[in-house]
């Protein structure tokens, strides 16, 4: 038995380089194959050698298959996407076309849903008084003059600048600013009073 082991070791030692070849290594890592090889080394008959060969060839073929399939999956998925993109770009819908040359945003992304906005305005209303939830604030606002309310609405709801408001009401920006400050003061006053 010791003699046998020596013989096997000697064989592997002599062929160290080949044994480290990845395909031989993976073949020998299966104990069944290793056993066959050892048997063939000890009793190098035709049958033993043939058994090893058969096992090795199926192992080799399997590895080839795995490698092949692995590459197939990778390249096929790349090709698939390329083909799809090419087809899609060839028959592009107008709305799917990019706005600029580089693409990025498409035309359909810029379509506005107007009904949505309208509905929201129908429910809430557009005026300043329609948008107040606080009851005290609403009451204080109702005490302001019409002009003051108008200005507050233009500033806080419509987001206009003092200059634009002045043009609309045909007065000076200073006057608007003044009226605005007075309105806020009055609001503050009534609110503080109520708070007490």
């Amino acid at each position, binding site marked *: 038995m010791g003699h046998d082991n020596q013989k096997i070791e000697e064989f592997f030692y002599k062929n160290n380089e080949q044994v480290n070849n990845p395909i031989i290594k993976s073949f020998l890592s299966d104990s069944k194959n290793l056993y066959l090889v050892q048997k063939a080394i000890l009793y190098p008959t035709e049958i033993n*050698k043939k058994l090893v060969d058969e096992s*090795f060839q199926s192992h*080799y073929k399997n590895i080839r298959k795995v490698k*092949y399939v*692995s590459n197939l999956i990778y390249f096929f998925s790349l090709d698939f*996407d390329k083909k799809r993109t090419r087809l899609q770009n060839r028959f592009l819908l107008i709305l799917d076309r990019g706005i600029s040359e580089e693409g990025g945003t498409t035309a359909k992304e810029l379509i506005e849903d107007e009904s949505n906005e309208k509905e929201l305005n129908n429910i809430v209303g557009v005026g300043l008084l329609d948008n107040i939830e606080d009851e005290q604030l609403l009451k204080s606002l109702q005490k302001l003059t019409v002009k003051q309310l108008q200005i507050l609405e233009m500033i806080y709801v419509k987001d206009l600048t003092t200059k634009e408001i002045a043009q609309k009401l045909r007065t000076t920006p200073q006057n608007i600013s003044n009226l605005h400050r007075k309105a806020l003061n009055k609001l503050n006053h009534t609110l503080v009073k109520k708070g007490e």
Partner: protein
Amino acid sequence: MANLENQFNEETLTIIENFTPKIKQCLHSTDYQEREDLEQEIKLKIIEKLATVKFQNAPSFWDFFS
């Protein structure tokens, strides 16, 4: 004959099963709407190729040790 066919089917099935993670990973190369299609196409291709491609004859084991 039927036996051989069965063996081939089983082999193909194991290969596809073993490669499922790899396939899933490669699906990311396309848009998510297309992924299901791609997965099916890949599996189809694997079956087709395993059935048709002749894998080269392996060298003899003892050739390495001559």
